[in-house]
């Protein structure tokens, strides 16, 4: 009981007479001020870092890989074809804009949703014409792409139906990648979250075979 009293008395004395000399007071207040300013600066800098969004997504050239989140796509050629790559699927009439490239699944499981779940396919813009959503074909089978296995690189063709009012001009394709978080904020489980722009490809389509 005596020891407790001594301890309590020590703290009580601290409260009543914090510091004895002026130099110590100044030094204590200086340290406190620096500490507060440092805390404010760090908090502000963290906020700035979080909110910072890259101004423009990187420009992608042919042959350069671009991340799609679950897969990595390497565009190789952009052509205007007279018909789609498949004999059975899709509407075959009319010109098609075909982006051919290689895709590789970089996750650890087979992926059925290569362009994200919910799906966000590539957006194509050219001269203000309204392009529909593309279809993705597996060139090996000439059918719609079903599933990509890890560690197996496949050639795919992404096909847009060209609207009637479009003529040969430059085309801009935007790639989006889905963000992966190993431990998300809700259940601490691995999940795929929002999309961020991963790259832009600007090219003039060639005439296909």
């Amino acid at each position, binding site marked *: 009981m005596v*020891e407790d009293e001594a*301890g309590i008395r020590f703290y009580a004395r601290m409260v009543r007479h914090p510091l004895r000399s002026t130099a110590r007071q100044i030094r204590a207040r200086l340290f406190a001020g620096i500490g507060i300013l440092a805390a404010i600066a760090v908090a502000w800098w963290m906020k700035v870092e979080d909110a910072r969004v890259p101004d423009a997504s990187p420009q992608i050239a042919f042959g350069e890989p671009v991340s799609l989140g679950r897969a990595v796509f390497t565009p190789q050629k952009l052509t205007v074809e007279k018909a789609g790559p498949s004999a059975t699927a899709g509407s075959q009439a009319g010109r098609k804009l075909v982006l051919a490239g290689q895709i590789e699944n970089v996750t*650890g*499981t*087979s992926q*059925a949703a290569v362009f994200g779940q919910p799906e966000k396919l590539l957006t194509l813009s050219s001269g203000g014409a309204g392009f529909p959503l593309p279809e993705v074909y*597996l060139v*090996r*089978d000439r*059918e719609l792409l*079903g*599933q990509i*296995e*890890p*560690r*197996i*690189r*496949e050639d795919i063709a992404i096909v847009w139906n060209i609207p009637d009012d479009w003529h040969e001009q430059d085309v801009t394709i935007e790639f989006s990648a889905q963000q992966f978080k190993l*431990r998300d904020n809700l*259940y*601490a*489980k*691995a999940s795929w979250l929002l999309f961020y722009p991963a790259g832009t490809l600007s090219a003039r389509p060639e005439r296909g075979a």
Partner: protein
Amino acid sequence: MSHLANLMAVALGGAMLGAMMNTLPGYDSSFQPFAVDAGENGVGQGRLFTAELIGLRSAGAISYERYGKNVVRDTSATFLVAELAISAREESRQIEAVWLGATGRQYNQSTRLENVPRGLSQARFEPRLTDRPLAIFELPDDEIVGGRLVLMARGSMRMDSAVHFASPASAPERQAMLRLGP
């Protein structure tokens, strides 16, 4: 001295809490099906089905007939064809198969070959009847030896049983073309 004791108590408490937080099993590692290993004879008794692995074959290309047309599927890797004998227990059920590769990656059945005759994804199994479906995977060669076949009932809860078969000791001989008939 009591200051030091207080400090020690706080530090110890902090260390224990930190250790508990860092060793907490994550959501994904907790919510896994529990493994039921197949016995020596290759027969696995799951909660909802009984399955036996008859054999494994590998091929560079697979062909089959669908609606009178010949369909050929080739690959830059390998097709692994697992022949199974499955019978449901208690209720009619569909089964899914997954290959856990040697590198730890998980390969689902190939959707390019989902319409193959006797395919596992199209089959439904009845109690007291044994069927022999095929489960086909497309994977690189080095995933076969050291990998395992896992069967689960489709539509069952995440934490239900999954039958794990033994890993093959050697890779099956790779045929250039495998023809699958009904």
